[in-house]
């Protein structure tokens, strides 16, 4: 029997202390849908498991008076889906999170874990990037914030420093006339890993895009913020020329791999297609048409 310790601290301070004290031999447990599988197949052999679900800040979803949302790192997809307001304000983020796994997995899996797992194909991450989510991170030296797009460092790697824990996401206040969407390409109808995923968030006034952000997944070693695609959309009425330019920027940002899910050529092409479709859905939502 392996000599593993299980801790479920009630406060973030205690979790940070325990995590730092373990000096890299500990793993954070939120929903466990990645960690328990890794432990079972021998990829993860933690000396200490730190369950963060008893920490209120990490398990809560709150909407602030200014319209921003706090999503704790351990909140499950099912809890977000049942929130009375979250999916109304951020339908694209919610649809991305709810695409991950089965009903059973949704009951446990968290967008925080999806991000920390470090997969370039993580569905929730391009949508969070498009949303402009800002992370709160806590460690032995205190707290810091980081834009979500600066968090992934490579496949399976993040920019968390030693001893740091993801606390949660802040999604900014939503101006009137905003909408977001996430689309992924998979060869099945659900429960698969993205071949490419694109998240788009738009703010529109009088049919003109006034602000845009684009997140691209499974097309590079990390999820990317595609600023050139967003620039091509801003100021446009999402006419064909603007969508073509944004789609081309999305393809240009791709640095994918060939693997069993898709080739470099295919992924690069699909990124452009998904950008256009996601932008149109986001625009419909921004203008109250969907």
């Amino acid at each position, binding site marked *: *029997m*392996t*000599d*593993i*310790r*299980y801790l*479920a601290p009630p406060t973030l301070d205690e979790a940070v202390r325990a995590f730092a004290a373990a000096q890299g031999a500990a793993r954070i*447990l939120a*929903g*466990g*849908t990645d960690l*328990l*599988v890794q*432990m*079972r*197949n021998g990829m993860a052999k933690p000396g200490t*498991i730190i*369950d963060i*679900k008893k920490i209120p800040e990490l398990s809560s979803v709150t909407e602030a008076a200014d319209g921003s949302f706090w999503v704790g790192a351990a909140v*499950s997809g*099912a809890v977000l889906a049942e929130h009375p307001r979250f999916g109304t304000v951020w339908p694209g983020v919610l649809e991305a999170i709810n695409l991950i*796994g*089965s*009903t*059973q*997995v949704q*009951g*446990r899996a968290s967008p925080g874990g999806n991000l920390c797992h470090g997969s370039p194909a993580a569905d929730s991450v391009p949508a969070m990037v498009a949303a402009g989510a800002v992370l709160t991170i806590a460690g032995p030296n205190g707290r810091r914030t980081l834009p979500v797009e600066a968090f992934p460092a490579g496949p399976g790697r993040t920019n968390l420093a030693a001893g740091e824990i993801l606390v949660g996401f802040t999604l900014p206040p939503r101006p009137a006339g905003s909408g977001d969407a996430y689309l992924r390409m998979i060869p099945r109808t*659900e*429960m698969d890993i993205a071949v490419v995923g694109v998240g788009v968030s738009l703010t529109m006034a009088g049919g003109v895009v006034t602000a845009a952000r684009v997140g691209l997944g499974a097309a590079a070693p990390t999820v990317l913020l595609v600023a050139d695609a967003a620039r091509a959309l801003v100021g446009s009425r999402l006419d064909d020329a603007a969508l073509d330019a944004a789609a081309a920027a999305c393809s240009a940002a791709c640095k994918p791999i060939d693997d069993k899910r898709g080739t470099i050529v295919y992924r690069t092409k699909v990124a452009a297609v998904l950008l256009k479709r996601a932008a149109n859905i986001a625009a419909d939502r921004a203008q109250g048409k969907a």
Partner: protein
Amino acid sequence: MAKLHVTTTINGEPTEFLCDPSESLLDVLRDTLGLTGSKEGCGTGDCGACSITLDGRLTCSCLVLAPEVEGHEIGTIEGMAKGDELHPLQQKFLEMAALQCGICTPGMLIAARSLLERNPDPSETEVRFWLAGNLCRCTGYDKIVRAVLETAAEMRSAA
């Protein structure tokens, strides 16, 4: 390594057990508590044969560490019938032969009950999506889906 002492509620009954820190809830249910209705198909959250509810929420017991359930409420297939009285879903699965070997059945039933608690009038598409995490390798899904829809209709008319 000392075992952990966990106090929980299973199917309404206060329950205590000892477990290793990295033991799964499924292993404790089956091997320690003798509740062998929850099945292990894959052990990695793919097949749904170990489906349970944790504080009323559907999940795979193979993806839960046993010490996590301290102070929480677990629902397993053993609590679905009330004595000799089968749950309407169990009765309908029998009537419509919505099972063959039976390994997936406890998970299907727990998942289907969880759906009907939230949505008493699901469409066929909603049933199929909700049950997509429950794999059946023999009878196929049609009879299962039809049994769930039929049960939902009967429970609505009885309500």
